[in-house]
């Protein structure tokens, strides 16, 4: 049997990779992809704990997280598109002012 700690270690590793991506990448879409990766790393923890403790709550959290991620992706990408229209750039360093 695969022990619980393996799943948690993998989840931590994926979360770290996502966090590093958010810091080092400059392309807004890639940063967004890294955020999705972080969400998925957390989802893995939820599902692992839910499976090992035999409680369905963790899996429901994942379900809700996916819904929120969908809403977030739709709105976030719409923001990125409208920024791109005005700035002709996806580099986050060039869009650091809170206005269009």
């Amino acid at each position, binding site marked *: 049997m695969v022990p619980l700690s*393996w799943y948690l*270690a993998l989840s931590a590793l994926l979360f770290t990779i996502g966090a590093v991506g958010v810091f080092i990448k400059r392309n807004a879409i890639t940063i967004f992809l*890294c955020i999705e990766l972080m969400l998925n790393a957390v989802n893995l923890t939820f599902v692992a704990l839910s499976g090992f403790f035999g*409680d369905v709550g963790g*899996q429901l959290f994942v379900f809700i997280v996916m819904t929120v991620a969908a*809403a977030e992706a*739709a709105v976030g990408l*719409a923001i990125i598109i409208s920024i791109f229209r005005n700035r002709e750039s996806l580099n986050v360093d060039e869009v650091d002012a809170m206005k269009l």
Partner: protein
Amino acid sequence: MTGELEKILFIVVAAIAVASALNILIQRNPLYSALSLIVTLLSLSVLYLTLRAQFIAAIQIVVYAGAIMVLFVFAIMLLNVPKTQPEVEKQKGLRLLAIPFAGVLIAEMFFVLRQIRPLTLPVLSGDPDQVVGTTWSIGTALFSDYLLPFEVTSVLILMAVVGAMVLARREGD
């Protein structure tokens, strides 16, 4: 015997997940990053299966790989800016600080992981259709104990529809 096979499966799938996650960072073209993320999502779905979360594993592919990532791919193709600008670092001094902090975090993680009790997956008992992770178990919990989050979700989606339409549409069309 089967325990060893499960470990091998876990290691292979986890290696694929980590490798494709790293590939997200390595690729310059966001389209390739998006495709690597899809591979990570699919391998996570296999891991969910090993944890008996069948419904979540299927939903992971339907919603994440099949809908959210399609949206990303469309957005990337729509904007078509394959070449990103060179990645400039603003504060070079912070890099020196990063190494000790990373060391502390890794040490902490090992410390925590060693504290975890050696749990195993609970033994299946009773009606196989009612076990945690099946459609029935998810559904009954979602529509009774978690009813409020479920209904709030519909409002959230409605707001996302309105917000995204307003943001993405040009004034003219």
